[in-house]
């Protein structure tokens, strides 16, 4: 190794040490100037390479370039280290108040009935049910006769009815659409009819003359009560986002045979349910049954070939149970203190 090479090695060691010892970007710049600047030893060696002998020239040239590259690399690395150290130090002195409220856009609230109505539509839609909306004023035929409630039948007492001056009915249930749907569709028929319905009864915390009902029908070959229970269990499980057991008990509705009520097992459904079920764990929420053959044949569906089921439930009751609301009149009160909670 020539003297020049040894010298270069020395410069390199010394420079690397100084780079590593530099404690600020300014220090580092000083180091850079002293080793790589125009007036540095390394630069003058590089400049003098051209004057060296033919043997020495490549050796020293190569070596001095190696040293230069090594120093430049070390400088770059050190520079990054120092820069990130500087950021880290500076961070500790920075702060902002993350708790300060921002001015939010004023977003309105959807009515709870709309919310749950949409949820119900979506669930049944996913299950393959078409959605129809009822006429709110309809004929006596569609509200009563078509669904097997003849004139002067005691069953009619179950529906306290508002009559218009032209003898129309403020629909007492959304079954008022059943005849039309059956008549205008070809089986398989799957449909739900959510809508506003009316009963002529005085209002109190538990009774309301205006309420929302969801009627549903499923008519096809080979449809059984077991399918009805399966469908409704699936619906309630989706609705409450957990598996919900159901219980069918007999009841009388003229448009179904057999007919009954569905109770849901509400032991896991929250406080509202617990309070109302009086600790029995079961709560009647829905009326249903196998569609009466008279209703089918009146709409041109052959009951010998097809069978089907129908159900109806009140939406408000479900919302009240879900949230523990104790006064049904709030839904139509227009009170924004109520609406703004949903």
């Amino acid at each position, binding site marked *: 190794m020539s003297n020049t090479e040894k010298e270069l090695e020395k410069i390199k060691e010394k420079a690397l040490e100084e780079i590593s010892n530099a404690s600020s970007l300014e220090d580092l710049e000083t180091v850079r100037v002293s080793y790589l600047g125009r007036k540095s030893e390394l630069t003058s060696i590089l400049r003098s390479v051209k004057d060296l002998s033919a043997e020495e020239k490549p050796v020293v040239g190569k070596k001095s370039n190696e040293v230069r590259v090594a120093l430049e690399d070390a400088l770059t690395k050190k520079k990054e280290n120092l820069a990130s150290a500087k950021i880290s130090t500076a961070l500790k002195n920075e702060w902002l108040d993350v708790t300060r409220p921002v001015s939010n*856009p*004023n*977003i*309105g*609230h*959807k*009515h709870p*009935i*709309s919310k749950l109505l949409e949820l119900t539509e979506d669930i049944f839609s996913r299950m*393959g049910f*078409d959605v129809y*909306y009822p006429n*709110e*004023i*309809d*004929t006596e035929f569609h509200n009563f006769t078509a669904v097997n409630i003849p*004139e*002067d*039948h*005691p069953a009619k*007492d179950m529906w306290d009815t508002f*009559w218009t001056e*032209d*003898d*129309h009915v403020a629909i007492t249930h959304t079954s008022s659409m059943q005849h039309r749907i059956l008549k205008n569709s070809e089986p*398989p028929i*799957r449909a739900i009819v959510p809508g506003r319905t*009316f009963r*002529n009864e*005085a*209002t109190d915390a538990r009774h309301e*003359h205006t309420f929302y009902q969801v009627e549903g029908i*499923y008519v*096809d070959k*080979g*449809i*059984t*009560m*077991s*399918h009805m*229970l*399966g469908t*409704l*269990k699936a619906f309630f499980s989706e609705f409450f986002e957990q598996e919900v057991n159901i219980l069918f008990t*007999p*009841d*009388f509705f003229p448009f179904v*045979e*057999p*007919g009954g009520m569905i109770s849901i097992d509400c032991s896991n459904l929250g406080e509202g349910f617990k309070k109302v079920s009086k600790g029995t764990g079961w709560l009647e929420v829905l009326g249903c049954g*196998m569609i*009466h*053959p008279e209703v089918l044949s009146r709409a041109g569906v052959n009951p010998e070939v097809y069978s089907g089921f129908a159900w109806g439930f009140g939406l408000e009751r479900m919302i009240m149970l879900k949230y523990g609301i104790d006064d049904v009149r709030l*839904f*139509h*009160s*227009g*009170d*924004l*203190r109520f609406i703004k909670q949903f």
Partner: protein
Amino acid sequence: MYVSYNWLKRYLPTLEELDIKLVASKVSGALAEVEEVIPRGAELKKVVVGEIQEVKKHPTNEKLAIAVVDTGHESLRNIVFAGRNSNFVKPGTLYPVCLPGGAIYNAADPFGKQTVVEVNIKEIDGEVSSGMLCSPKELGIIDDSKGISIVQNDMKAGDDLLPLLQDYILEIENKSLTHRPDCFSHRGIAREVAAILQIEFRDLEALSTPVKTEHVETSVTVRDKKVCRRFTGISMTNITVKPSPAWMQILLAYVGTRPINNVVDSSNFMMFDIGYPSHMYDLDKIEDNHLFVRKAEKGEKVIALNEKKYTLEKEMTVIADKNGVEDIAGIMGGAGSEISEQTKTLFIESAAWDMFSIRRTGMTLGLTSEASTRFSKGLDAFGTEETIIRLVSLLEDTADGDVASELLDIKIEPLEKNYIDFNLTSVARLIGITIDKETMIRILESLHITIENKESLPVQIPVNQDVIVRLEIPYFRQDLSIEQDIVEEIARIYGYENVKPQLPTRSINPVKHNIDSTFIRIIKKALNQSGLDEVMTYAFTGDDVYSKAGLNTNNAIKLKNPLSPELSLLRHEVLPSLLEKIDLNKNNFDSFGFFEISKVIVKEKSYTEIPKQPRRIAAVSVSKKNSDIFYTLKSSSEYLSNELGLKFEYSNLNGTTERMTAKMFHPYKSASINVDGKSVGIIGEIHPQIAHAFGYEDLNIALFDFEYDPLKEAYSSSKDFEYIPVVNSQQIERDINIWLSEKTEVGKLMQELQTKGIEFVKAINLVDTYTNDKGKTSITLRFSIEGDSDNPLTDSDINNILADLKAIIKEDFSLSIRRQ
């Protein structure tokens, strides 16, 4: 409906071996909900029959007396009692006695909420009293403590009263039994319980037809043969009217009917027992002992047993004598021939009536009864004869009566048995469960249904192969008429809990797209995003709100039977209901806004089938301070326009429009909202007159009212937007400030500037408005200028564009530019 467990036991000898809770839950699961099981007399202890031997005065207290009582024990006992009851406590009478160590209910507490009192031997004013004489109230039977004894001479001293007094009452929800008149009786419920629990049902012993021993000439003429289906009756004489035996009084009281006397109680008892109403006439009050079943005359009057006077219509059926109405058929008897303590001779009627007529009459008169409840549910005509026969037997025992006529039986409607051809496979077809043949047969037979060709049935019922049996339906099951009825019977007795939920298999065809559902959701989302809350208000409204809102009530369809005047109209507009709801909310919020989407009912001279029911989208925006309320609500309208992808054009109404709701808007601070030149709604400030009518003078209120259908049509027919390829372009924004003059329409100005088609100007937006202290307003319009990045616009190009724009503003609109 109340059902007595003791009463059921008369038909169900093994019922006692079962747990009452199990019975209640099984009945709930297979017939109708048992809402409650109410124990009666549970706390009573040691209550027996005592026979009064002697009554003595109390030596020191004149308000008290002492009864010497035989209670079946070796020695007589002295019992001190309140002397005022001496009228009833006489030697020879039977009286309930609570023995020492026993317990009764406190007479001082309100009936039904009584505490329990223990009875012990004690000294009362120096006299030892070993027991207590008990009033019906103290025994928890009825609210009566006047001193009368519940016990009659069918019992004897020492008889235990607890088996009669201790009972469970099942409260059954009778709405589920609308089609089951047979279940409005203990025999009917007992039959069901026997079938459900598969236990023995023991029917009442058959009785032979009564034979007359006295003779009272009695006759009946049935003229109304449409409503009267069968009329059965008999006369009895030598009747002694007195209290019923204790067992009957207790049963009646426990099922909710106050005991009256042996004749009336027997009629009630028979109705609750086997289900058929009957009516008792004091025959001495019936002219010529001759009754007519006929239509009432219009305006004919009758005072019924409830002491109310009814004016009858000519469609109503009555039972009358020559002088007038004695009974409103199937509903309630008349006071004129009511049973009294003096009654000696009776006519007992048990008839069958047309269910529809009875219901109609009851509804018209506003009068229902236990009898009409049963008749209007379609009670069969078979049971009238049995009712008469059993009543005669009961009155022979309890009223010492003698039969005084033949049994009259006028059968108008033929009594025919019903048969149903039943396919055994229909249970699997409709319920989805397989039940073996033996089980089906056992269930049917337990319901008293006879299978005609039972022996010829195949041993194994083949799957999917019809096996039809002929079923004979018992007379009391008029509700069973079709195959599905039988399917229900088998399924419910077999147990619905055995039907497992199962999902149907279905084709994967997509559901129909309900455009309204989608459209309504978009509207609600947009209006919510804009800050409006959604409310729902009644479809009904009233004259008051309508006239405050300046609308004519003649344009709304009226309800025949409204709940109140405020809810007597079917609204044809939504806005008045929203205005009404401002009142409540103004107390809670300084500024607020809400909307409703709802159907309304349109009144037209003619329509096919039903009136038109379009939807409205209406909103109100309210502020106590902000006078710019129009623009607050216009912003909501614009959210809607953006969400729907429609361009709303606003043009000042200047007092003209055809919409009815326009009257509610300020004539010069309101706009028609159009899409492609077609009107879809109105927006504006409230008319000061309407604000005044509602008492909202202090509030800033803006309203809008969209018609759903034209809006939906515009939405449905609007074309998808046109995609413009993304290119590297030069984007420049420049603002121009303009002083407005009075009534400058900024929207029109901007539209005009846009349509002038100055090259490179791609969009114009209003970014600021400013009003100086002299009330002069200026606006800042921002012009988006787009150039070609390959050949960019120079500063002088841009200045030229701006100069062109300013020239239009100055020359075409005569407006001045405000220096920056």
